[in-house]
């Protein structure tokens, strides 16, 4: 039986990796991939706790996270295509219309 804290540490490492990816990368596709990393980190936590408490509610919530991830990818990639059409670039530094 693996201690629960191992899963929490693994999930924390993956989450922080995704967070760093969102903060430092300029390619907007990599930023979306990093968001997927963070969602997967929370999923690992959910499943580990679900196994620990012998309660499948955590796995049901992973199911909902999956739904949200699919919706996020569909809308996010549509936004990327629209942005690429208007600027011919997917570098986030180029998109500063709302910056002042």
């Amino acid at each position, binding site marked *: 039986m693996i201690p629960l804290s191992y899963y929490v540490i693994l999930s924390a490492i993956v989450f922080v990796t995704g967070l760093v990816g969102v903060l430092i990368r300029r390619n907007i596709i990599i930023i979306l991939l990093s968001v997927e990393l963070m969602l997967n980190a929370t999923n690992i936590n959910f499943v580990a706790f679900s196994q620990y408490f012998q309660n499948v509610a955590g796995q049901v919530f992973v199911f909902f996270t999956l739904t949200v991830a*699919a919706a996020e990818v569909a809308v996010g990639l549509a936004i990327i295509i629209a942005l690429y059409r208007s600027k011919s670039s997917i570098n986030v530094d180029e998109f500063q219309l709302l910056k002042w």
Partner: protein
Amino acid sequence: MALAFFFYFSGVIVLTSVLVVALRNPIYSAISLLIMFFHVAGLYVTLHAEFLAAVQIIVYAGAILVLYLFVVMLLNVKREERYHAQFPLAALLGVTILTEVLMLAILRGFSSEPLPTPGGAGQADQATGNTETIGEVLYSTYLFPFEVASLILLVAMIGAIVLAKKNLGEHEL
């Protein structure tokens, strides 16, 4: 044995997630994310969540990642500079926060006594399979969130079609 499997899966997960952030080419990043998804599915199998492992491979690896690769190849981007200009500051802060999180997890995680296991709705039944148990809970206790999830998918589908449509705003909407 279980510990060996855990360390194999977690090692590959950590390595590939670092590669996702560090690699220069978006296609390589997506491929290493694919490897990470497969190993997360393996981790789910060791946690007795077989249904989620299958869903992870079908939905994440099969649908979401293919969509990513499709868009990467559609856009055909040239290589560009990877990191923001404030990379040194971000790296410093990231390393600091990561160290802090790990310290907290290690110092607190090993000293506490095991948490009590509460009963209640969704108690896993060992007699029935994993998929049956999830299905029963999903369609009884979590029926309303399930319907909301279907609404989210509908909104995402319409939103994606509207956003990716050509000449947005020139024609009447």
